[in-house]
């Protein structure tokens, strides 16, 4: 008897996709809130070292990983690729008499997404918590038509009041509790994909570049405090230290979503998004686009008439100024606990950055036009 041929095994993720998923899972498991990026940055440093990069932590807490040019010779031009490491979150402002927590946002948090949201409360130990709600049965008529303002929201850690007060202090951090989850079609959802997606893509780019000849010194930086404050603190100080000749900021941008305007969003699985506008040097934009065309990497263009809202805002104007570009990854539901993206876009962004770095051998055409 002849056995029937075995059906082809279902295609699993490619090794590269599996690697991206593994890195992204780890990156999003680490809270890494603004001003408290140390654990995330340490992880980035360890990963970059394992890939052969020389690393150092700078004064503000960002990590810079250097892949020196492999060609012999004197001082080489420097490329800085920056991805901000911090993610939005919350901070405890009060532990009430009854043991509930009041919180304030760290970065852009829409209070309308918080009711019933699961969180981690980073107290004396990590505690599960949830934003409490009042069931419809107990609401006054019409109450559900009004959003709940921040000062009426509370986090319940399920502890008796005295124990809650011992375990949590004002100033403790609160992060969304959503571990990375695979969806259909190579998409994933989770917290902090803004901007751990770019941190992951940066590591993938370093991994790729480590095996290639590149004529420039390439600095990959995980920068702190993009999401809060006036400007991007980590990008500003890191750029000052590196003094790059050319820089790229890697960040996320709005992915298409039902209900969102097409003209303000970018295709999921449509490839990386290149910003064009005053925050981006035209020669860097052109070199990125030429690289994508030459390497057959699909890409999209985001017109940014004012600011790009990324590390590039600060990088561009450090010292004598830096020709800067922005490589974005389309992200749906930005600044929520259920951000989502297509892993192929993340991988393409990494590929584009690595290829761009290698092609800089010939300098940056049009730099002085």
């Amino acid at each position, binding site marked *: 008897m002849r056995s029937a041929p075995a059906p082809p095994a279902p295609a699993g993720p490619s090794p590269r996709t599996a690697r991206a998923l593994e890195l992204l899972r780890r990156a999003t498991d680490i809270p890494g809130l603004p001003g408290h990026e140390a654990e995330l940055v340490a992880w980035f440093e360890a990963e970059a070292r394992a890939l052969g990069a020389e690393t150092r932590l700078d004064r503000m807490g960002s990590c810079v990983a250097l892949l020196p040019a492999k060609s012999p010779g004197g001082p080489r031009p420097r490329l800085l690729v920056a991805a901000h490491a911090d993610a939005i979150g919350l901070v405890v402002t009060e532990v009430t008499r009854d043991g509930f927590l009041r919180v304030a946002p760290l970065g852009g948090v829409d209070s309308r*997404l918080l*009711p019933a949201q699961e969180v981690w409360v980073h107290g004396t130990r990590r505690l599960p918590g949830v934003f409490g709600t009042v*069931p*419809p*049965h107990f609401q006054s008529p019409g109450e*559900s038509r*009004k959003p709940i303002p921040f000062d009426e929201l509370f986090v319940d850690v399920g502890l008796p009041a005295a124990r809650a007060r011992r375990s949590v202090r004002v100033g403790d951090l609160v992060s969304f509790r959503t571990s990375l989850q695979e*969806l259909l079609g190579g998409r994933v959802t989770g917290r902090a994909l803004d901007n751990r997606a770019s941190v992951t893509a940066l590591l993938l780019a370093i991994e790729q570049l480590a095996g290639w000849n590149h004529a420039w010194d390439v600095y990959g930086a995980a920068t702190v405090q993009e999401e809060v404050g006036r400007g991007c603190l980590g990008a500003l100080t890191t750029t000052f230290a590196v003094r790059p000749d050319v820089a790229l900021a890697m960040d996320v941008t709005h992915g298409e979503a039902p209900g969102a305007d097409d003209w303000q969003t970018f295709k999921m*699985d449509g490839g990386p998004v290149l910003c064009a506008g005053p925050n981006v040097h035209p020669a860097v934009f052109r070199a990125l686009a030429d690289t994508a065309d030459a390497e057959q990497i699909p890409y999209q263009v985001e017109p940014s008439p004012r600011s790009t809202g990324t590390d590039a805002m600060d990088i561009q104007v450090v010292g004598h100024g830096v020709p800067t570009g922005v490589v974005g990854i389309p992200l749906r539901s930005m600044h929520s606990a259920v951000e989502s993206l297509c892993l192929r876009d993340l991988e393409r962004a990494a590929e584009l950055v690595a290829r761009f770095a290698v092609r800089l051998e010939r300098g940056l055409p049009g730099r002085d036009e």
Partner: protein
Amino acid sequence: MARPGAFPWELFEALSNARGVTGDEGPVRRLLRDYLAPHADRMEVDAMGSLLVEKRGRRTGARVLLGAHMDEVGFMVVRIEKSGALRLQKVGGLDDRLLAGKRVRVGPQALPGVLGAKPPHLGQEEEASRTVKLEDMYADIGAADEAEARAHVRVGDTVTFDAAFEPWGAALVRGKAFDDRVGCALLAALVAGPSPADFVAAFTTQEEIGLRGARVAAQRFEPEVAVALEGTGAVDVPGKRLAALGAFPCLGRGPVLTRRDSTTISDPRLFELFERAAAAAGVRWQPKRPGIGGTDAGEYHRAGPGARAISVSVPCRYIHAPAALAARADIEATLELVRAALPKLAALQRPGGTPRENS
């Protein structure tokens, strides 16, 4: 193996994790059938999908029905859009304000998804002062287009919240659908244990859209005494309105006895019976806030010639939300109370009579 008569925590966990939006209670029913098969004297599934279990005890008396509903609030997929997004409608009472940005499971395969809405960056200023309605949300399963979505999801599939049962410290548990899987677990424990008297255990369907399963179950058995076992809202949480009204019921203060809710005025003798049983068993209990909510008792008390009815509940924070919190001690005390009251229930006569004391 848990000691006989103890609360079946493993069953409760499985019931909480099982998915059974109103009208789609199959997975919950299957769990209960398997668990109860060795203990039931008779089991049937009625035309509404309710699981009706007859339990013989040492004594007969008034026809007693103990009920718990299997269904949970959730959603139904009503449209699959060209973009691959799923449009949903609510099944049961849910506050729109806590839906955006939550994780869900879609259809019989429990496909992971999220409830998406427009991001705040893109919203206009005035939008931040408005709530996000379910009509403006979509379930996102990652499908790139309609064809990919249709390969996994059908219109009419039900959608549950995605929340796995977990202990919260030593005292609390947290999970999905405690309203009313905690009642189901309590009732299953009563069926599985030795019973002093005959009773019918009704695991009902469609409570969340109007007590529909309970109505048919009650018409089938015409109970004289009926008890709805429930997970009820605990509101010992901050809130101006709650502060003014008095924030109760509370977690940790024992079972909740209802005198009056929006569907039933509890039979006074039955209420007294539970009060006395609690005192005799040393179980601390607390009142439900009168007039709020409704349970299957709303149908039990008016079926056929009518029945004495009451609701006995476990206080749970955050019912009708992705996941609720409950105190282990409250759950165990509720089981103890109902078990203590059970022998006395069969001694109650029809409404209008007087309670017969146990001889």
